[in-house]
């Protein structure tokens, strides 16, 4: 997928001025946090489980090579095939080769963010194989040729009228004047249309929420059942999984699953949690004959042992973006690549480079909400700060930012000067805003006051007030 992350500022401005997007964001903004909060409140052990989840992932990452090897051994033992892919290109080549060997004409797909990262669909199409997205949200995005805007609700940015318009445009075999009385009618139309695609496909491609070393299994979690139809009906099942998906045992996966749905959709458990281990066994009446896993690195191994290793704990629940004031204001497309929101602001610079994605870790107020809801306690704000430091070190930030930061650092490191400067500043602002509670514009800070007012300081700095109160206590 081509990144537009370098244009984050323009993307964000565009998003703010898009009434349809703002309508959708306004709708989803309060919903997801409320659903999660209710599910968490119903499970008193949730906080302890977060620590457990973090520890399981940390243990796995510290022994990632061992668990990947064990997992591979067990996939092979159960008749599956493993394809290692260092780069996106390796992964695309592996997928195409499997499809070609299977003589595939159509390929059904379950929702997979790694598939977006690898741009598998474009690659298959280029080589004459038709990919069909079957997740309801992904299906409409394929019709509209749009990328997902959210990692679990890819079409959250659309409104009902967008769905109706796209379906009327593409499903031309149906009466043009049909009525979509309810949302369900839209869903039913997709269900009926996709059913024949599921049955006809030669290959099914899914992602993986977890790989299990103990058993050589891959796990997918869905509510629709599309992932299961995708991996059950065609003759060949391909799993796309990145290296950090592995966990040691079923018990480890189970603890993480207790966190996943609650953090993601506020469900206690997703409708279908499915463990796949190899292909069809002797006597089985259904299931794929071949089971392949393409294991993708694409930049992740380089995060191991760095200050960004904790990011590899991510289980892709989307709680961080659901609670992020920035994401909830500009939506997912502004981030310009596959992974939006706080997790994307940390992951994207690792995967496509901070030179391209440097704006993303800057698009944060460091309010800390993302870390407070993360099921595996990833210190997202801290890692965004690391990216800001790296960006500064590599002289990627603009000259004006660098000069002002240097000036600020000079003052902040000299307490007497800092106090003098803040005293003058507070006094000046209070004089400037006399009689008013707020300032609509401030010299040299037009960029800041362009979008909001500055509350007028009372004229006294914290230091001055503290000293005064201490004096009055003593007297």
């Amino acid at each position: 997928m081509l990144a537009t992350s370098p244009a984050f500022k323009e993307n964000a401005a565009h998003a703010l001025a898009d009434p349809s997007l703002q309508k959708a964001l306004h709708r989803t903004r309060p919903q997801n946090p409320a659903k999660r909060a209710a599910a968490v409140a119903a499970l008193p052990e949730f906080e302890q489980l977060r620590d457990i989840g973090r520890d399981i992932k940390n243990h796995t990452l510290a022994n990632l090579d061992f668990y990947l090897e064990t997992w591979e051994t067990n996939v092979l033992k159960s008749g599956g095939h493993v394809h290692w892919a260092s780069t996106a290109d390796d992964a695309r080549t592996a997928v195409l080769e499997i499809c070609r060997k299977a003589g595939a004409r159509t390929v059904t797909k379950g929702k997979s963010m790694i598939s977006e990262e690898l741009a598998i669909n474009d690659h298959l199409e280029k080589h004459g194989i038709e990919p069909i997205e079957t997740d309801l949200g992904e299906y409409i995005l394929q019709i509209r040729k749009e990328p997902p805007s959210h990692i679990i609700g890819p079409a959250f940015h659309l409104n009902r009228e967008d769905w109706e318009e796209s379906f009327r445009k593409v499903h031309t075999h149906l009466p043009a004047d049909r009525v979509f009385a309810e949302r369900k009618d839209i869903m039913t139309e997709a269900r009926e249309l996709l059913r024949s695609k599921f049955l006809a496909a030669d290959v099914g491609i899914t992602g993986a929420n977890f790989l299990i070393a103990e058993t050589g299994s891959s796990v997918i979690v869905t509510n629709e059942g599309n992932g299961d139809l995708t991996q059950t009906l065609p003759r060949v099942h391909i799993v796309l999984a990145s290296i950090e998906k592995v966990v040691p045992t079923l018990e480890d996966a189970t603890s993480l699953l207790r966190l996943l749905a609650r953090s993601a959709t506020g469900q206690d458990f997703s409708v279908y949690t499915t463990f796949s281990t190899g292909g069809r066994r002797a006597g089985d009446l259904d299931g794929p004959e071949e089971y392949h896993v393409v294991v993708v690195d694409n930049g992740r191994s380089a995060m191991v042992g760095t200050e960004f290793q904790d990011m590899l704990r991510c289980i892709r629940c989307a709680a961080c973006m659901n609670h992020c004031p920035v994401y909830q204001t500009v939506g997912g497309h502004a981030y310009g690549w596959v992974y939006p929101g706080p997790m994307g602001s940390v992951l994207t610079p690792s995967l496509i480079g901070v030179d391209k994605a440097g704006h993303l870790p800057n698009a944060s107020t460091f309010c800390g909400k993302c870390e407070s809801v993360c099921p595996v306690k990833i210190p997202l704000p801290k890692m965004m700060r690391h990216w800001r430091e790296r960006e500064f070190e590599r002289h990627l930030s603009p000259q004006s930012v660098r000069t002002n930061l240097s000036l600020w650092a000079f003052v902040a490191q000299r307490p007497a000067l800092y106090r003098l400067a803040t005293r003058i500043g507070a006094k000046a602002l209070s004089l400037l805003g006399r009689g008013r509670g707020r300032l609509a514009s401030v010299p040299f800070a037009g960029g800041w006051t362009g979008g909001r007012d500055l509350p007028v300081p009372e004229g006294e700095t914290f230091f001055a007030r503290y000293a005064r109160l201490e004096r009055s206590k003593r007297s």
Partner: protein
Amino acid sequence: MSREAIFGAIRRGLRRGALPDDQAMALRARLSAHPRHLIPARSRVARAEQIALFLRNLEKEFATFRRVSDAAELPEAVATYIAAQNLPPELVIAPHDELRSIPWAARPMLRLREGRAEAADLVSVQHGYVGIAETGTLMLPAAPDRPTTLNLLCDTAIVVLRASRIVGAYEEAWDVLRAERHDELSDGFMPRNVMLVTGPSRSADIESTLELGAHGPRRLHVVLVDDDSSALQS
């Protein structure tokens, strides 16, 4: 080539070579002991309450159920349910011995076909392997006598489950699978596919509003056979 590059990069990041033998042994011991982590208290309750919790959670997740005291009542329970849904009395049913032993002939109107589900089938009857009270979840491991398509393809999925097969937490279900199943191919216990099913299919992709019946079954109905005397007495 990719394989070596990936393992090399991981080990460089971890600042070591392949794991030393003693550490690898400790990890292998952890794998074979597969220790449980914290199990939520909600399912650690008396037997009868565990079954009640399972049924409450089924309903919370938009599934329906009927309790029968004996397998002999099953044909009537199934026939009544599908009639109430205005469905034709045609069932595709798992070729499982427990389901074969049900006196279906008592309801001659019901037409049964054993096997996997096909596109035209409307109602499936699956053999429930284990029920998990914690979230009202059905564990359905694939086997020649428990085809996966029965969980997915039909508009209406009926699952027959014995009350004695209800456990509290997922971990207990894994232990049942470990103890009872043997996969000849891998010499392990995992079958090709294990589905954990919690309610009927749904999606919130349109305006993040929940709608039932996305791609999988629109209805999930559990017929619970009360064969657990300890639960009935307590």
